[in-house]
């Protein structure tokens, strides 16, 4: 019998247990924290209770953005084995692109989040399937949660904007405010600019769960947090008017219309066509739909009212007109070479749209004579026109509370020097500028803002869409108060003269916007047409106008742009008339 084998065996036993001790030490000492969190996550589940986003309501009390309950599928990353196979499997079950799942997991990990929302609008079949196979999906949790819903789909997407899934970068910024990875944030429009009101604050609840992940009961913890729902936002928008404009635009491919209240600067209607259904960002957008929308040549995501850049065409003659008067370069007795249909400037032929013969300053504006304004502009000078334009708000943001806005371009001599080189440009550029062509680009909201200034006798008022914000208890926490930003330097008498001429554009028999003439008992419209030549085909048709009621009070500013719509005196003028008539019908209770 080999005695030493007995003792030798001890070494084997000691060696084995030595390995085991190291293993256990690793588990209990070094990985203790990891397993501790796992064990807590096992029996307690932290659930973020999303705050219900505030409603957005029109001035005639129509809810244009609200919340609707959807079945949302959450995935607990602690319980989910992240492999390509598993992700592919899940993506097949719930029909979500595996790349976007990967993206979500990456964002969650970077932000130290435990849970992601895989899908926001689970249909009832998926819900049934997952619930029936609960054992196979311990990482899943289905919650019936309110999500953003836009009942009028495309109608308000350029005002209200849309909410979309929070991105990793946004979450990094907003984490301190209690946002979670499955939250939605406003991406454009009012949703974005009033995010802090609309969002509210997420609540945090803790649940005790059993082995299958089913909730046993709610438990109070020191980190529990009650949710605070978002505040409601009340817009100056009139739903009836907005939907009416939508029906008018049925006949047009693309364009925009803005209706402002003269007194307050509140936007009654802001319409931009084509548009999109913002609900797709909540329910999940199919790749092909997204590609279609993104690459569509009519750019449905472009808010033409605030971001659309157009040459203003003859509408810009207002600026040249006012600047000439203010700089005393012209008055009612100023005459230039008569309009024979064309004129030679810097060895180039510049045309007019009609033969006007001899006109004075006012008649030139009423008839929109290009020949007159070429010569007037050259007399006034490019930098003076620039000053006049910026005084009226061009080349700058109007400050409208819809998040996106473009500045546009107003050229001055510096700009032209830079673009063409010193002394490489000349009278041709100035002549073009004075009729709103060439290197100039403006947004419709800037034009609307200009008419607002004219209507308010030189006072600058910020156009806005949000009237007030109320908490869910009805407490008003924000209200728009009319504030005169500044006054333009144009003398009142010149503005009067301008208004008079604008009245005649519509109401005198040789005006260019006769189609905008309304029944005298209703008041009158005064405005300026524009036919902006551009590279995309037919000229863009403009009509900017002010509606004055029968008592002589300016009521509305209306700007209509029809892309490639031809002459501004045709469709835009007609549309303006229809809008005013509808406005009056609405006012009278129809």
């Amino acid at each position, binding site marked *: *019998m080999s005695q030493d084998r*007995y003792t030798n065996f001890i070494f084997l*036993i000691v060696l084995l247990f030595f390995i085991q001790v190291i293993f256990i030490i690793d588990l209990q000492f070094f990985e203790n924290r990891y*397993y501790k969190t796992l064990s807590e996550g096992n029996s307690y589940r932290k659930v973020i209770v999303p705050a219900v986003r505030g409603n957005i309501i029109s001035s005639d009390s129509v809810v244009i953005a609200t919340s609707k309950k959807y079945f949302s599928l959450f995935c607990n990353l602690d319980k989910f084995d992240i492999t390509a196979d598993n992700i592919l499997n899940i993506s097949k079950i719930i029909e979500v692109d595996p790349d976007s799942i990967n993206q979500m997991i990456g964002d969650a990990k970077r932000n130290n989040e435990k849970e992601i929302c895989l899908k926001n609008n689970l249909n009832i079949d998926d819900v049934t399937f997952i619930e029936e196979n609960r054992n196979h999906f311990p990482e899943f949790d289905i919650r019936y949660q309110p999500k953003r819903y836009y009942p009028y789909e495309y109608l308000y997407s350029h005002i209200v904007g849309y909410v979309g899934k929070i991105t990793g970068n946004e979450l990094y910024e907003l984490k301190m405010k209690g946002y979670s990875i499955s939250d939605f944030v406003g991406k454009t429009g009012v949703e974005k600019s009033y995010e802090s009101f609309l969002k509210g604050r997420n609540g945090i609840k803790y649940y005790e*769960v059993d*082995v299958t992940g089913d909730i046993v009961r709610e438990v109070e913890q020191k980190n529990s947090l009650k949710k605070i729902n978002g505040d409601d936002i009340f817009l100056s928008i009139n739903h009836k008017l907005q939907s009416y404009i939508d029906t008018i635009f049925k006949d047009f491919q693309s364009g925009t219309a803005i209706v402002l209240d003269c007194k307050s600067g509140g936007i009654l209607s802001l319409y931009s066509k084509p548009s999109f259904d913002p609900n797709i960002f909540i329910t999940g957008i199919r790749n092909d739909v997204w590609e279609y929308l993104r690459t569509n040549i009519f750019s449905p995501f472009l808010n033409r009212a605030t971001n659309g850049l157009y040459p203003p065409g003859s509408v810009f003659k207002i600026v040249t007109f006012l600047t000439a008067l203010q700089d005393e370069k012209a008055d009612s007795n100023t005459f230039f070479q008569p309009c024979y249909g064309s004129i030679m400037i810097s060895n180039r032929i510049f045309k007019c749209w009609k033969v006007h013969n001899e006109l004075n300053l006012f008649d030139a504006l009423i008839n929109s004579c290009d020949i007159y304004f070429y010569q007037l502009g050259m007399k006034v000078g490019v930098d003076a026109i620039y000053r006049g334009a910026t005084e009226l708000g061009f080349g700058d943001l109007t400050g409208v509370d819809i998040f996106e806005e473009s500045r546009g371009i107003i050229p001055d001599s510096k700009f032209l020097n830079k673009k063409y080189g010193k002394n490489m440009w000349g009278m041709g550029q100035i002549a073009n500028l004075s009729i709103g062509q060439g290197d100039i680009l403006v947004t419709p909201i800037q034009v609307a803002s200009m008419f607002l200034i004219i209507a308010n006798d030189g006072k600058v008022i910020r156009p806005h869409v949000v009237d007030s914000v109320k908490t869910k208890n009805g407490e008003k926490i924000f209200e728009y108060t009319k504030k005169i930003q500044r006054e333009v330097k144009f003398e009142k008498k010149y503005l009067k003269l301008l208004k008079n001429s604008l009245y005649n554009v519509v109401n005198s028999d040789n005006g260019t916007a006769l189609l905008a003439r309304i029944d005298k008992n209703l008041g009158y419209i005064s405005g300026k047409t524009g036919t902006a030549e551009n590279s995309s085909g037919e000229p863009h048709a403009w009509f900017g106008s002010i509606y004055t009621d029968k008592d002589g009070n300016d009521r509305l500013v209306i700007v209509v742009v029809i892309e490639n719509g031809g002459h501004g005196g045709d469709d835009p003028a007609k549309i303006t008339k229809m809008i005013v008539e509808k406005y009056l019908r609405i006012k009278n209770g129809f």
Partner: protein
Amino acid sequence: MDFKKKLDPFIVLPLLALSIFGLLVLFSVVHNDSISIFYKQLIWFFISLILFVGIQFIPIKIFYISAYLLYFFSISLLVFLKVVNKAPVERWFDFGIAYIQPSEFAKVSLILTLPRFLLSRKEKKDSFLTLFVSYIIVLIPFFLIFFQPDLGTSILFIIILFLILYLYGIKFINLFILFTPILSIIFSFFPIFWIFYLFFIAFVLYFSKVDFIKLLKVFFANIIFGGLAPVVWNSLRDYQKNRIISYLSPQKDIHGYGWNLLQSKIGIGSGGIFGKGFLNGTQKGLNFVPQQHTDFIFSAVGEEFGFLGYLFILTMLSIILLRVLYNVNRIKSKYTKLVVYSFTIFIIVEYFLNISMSCGLIPIVGVPLPLFSYGGSSYLTTFIMFAIINRGIDERDRYW
């Protein structure tokens, strides 16, 4: 004769300490939803105590004499179980009030039988016949249990074989030869490795100056085992395959055995140094570890008593082992000596396997944690083995 003197305090006190600790842990695991399990185990504890005392009055020679009979009896039980039971997993006899697991008693009878056979072949201990018959003695219960199916227990039989052969003093080269077919089974799943492995065996045997005939035999055995293994694998139950597969990637199948392992590791890992305290474990109360009262009870030890709880078990086992080691050389009877030492090592190996599997060090094989896991048969056999250890040490001066 003074009965007190018959009890070795260094065996009995650690045994009692482990039993009581085991009962406490089991109570903690089941007290919320199935307390009856604890009461049943408590009854088994008292039955075991009585049996322990009773065995102190039975000389080891009686076991020696009846070893073959016990072996035959336990094999019959296993066969009988095979015939009687039609259930897919046929490990137990249902006696109405309790289940009896014959494989547990087969372990004891094997450790009593194999030494007797080996000692009877003193002169030709390294002969082919000795090794072959040893193999047969073990393989009969092995296959009966393997096809119950109970992978864990059947593996224990292989361990018993090598443990006893080694302690008995079989030459290393013969142990190696015996062991090669088992490795062949593993390697046969990777045919290229298997061929290399066969070359390796030939190489080792050639330099050990083993004669050519023997070399051929070894080779032949290896080819048979290696060739049959895939066939046997395909006859395995799905859950057995899963157990093996789940070891390779426990995270993958979170609801099968991988789930158990992960939850068990969470339990052990979250316990830390001092544990969460008695009855404070969160893993068990909510049924996170479905088999926590049986195979995975160590996760409750780790969670509630932490590293200290583990150290306590190790300390108790060390005391027993050192006490046995101290006394075993004084045992005059070779049979008693071999049996006592084998039982001791075997119990410790069971502890090692169960704890290792609970923390993911080795694949999950269904080996219970002696004196902790719920189950009467296992409890009883552990006490029987301790009783024989104690009796063997007590009669160390007796020569027969």
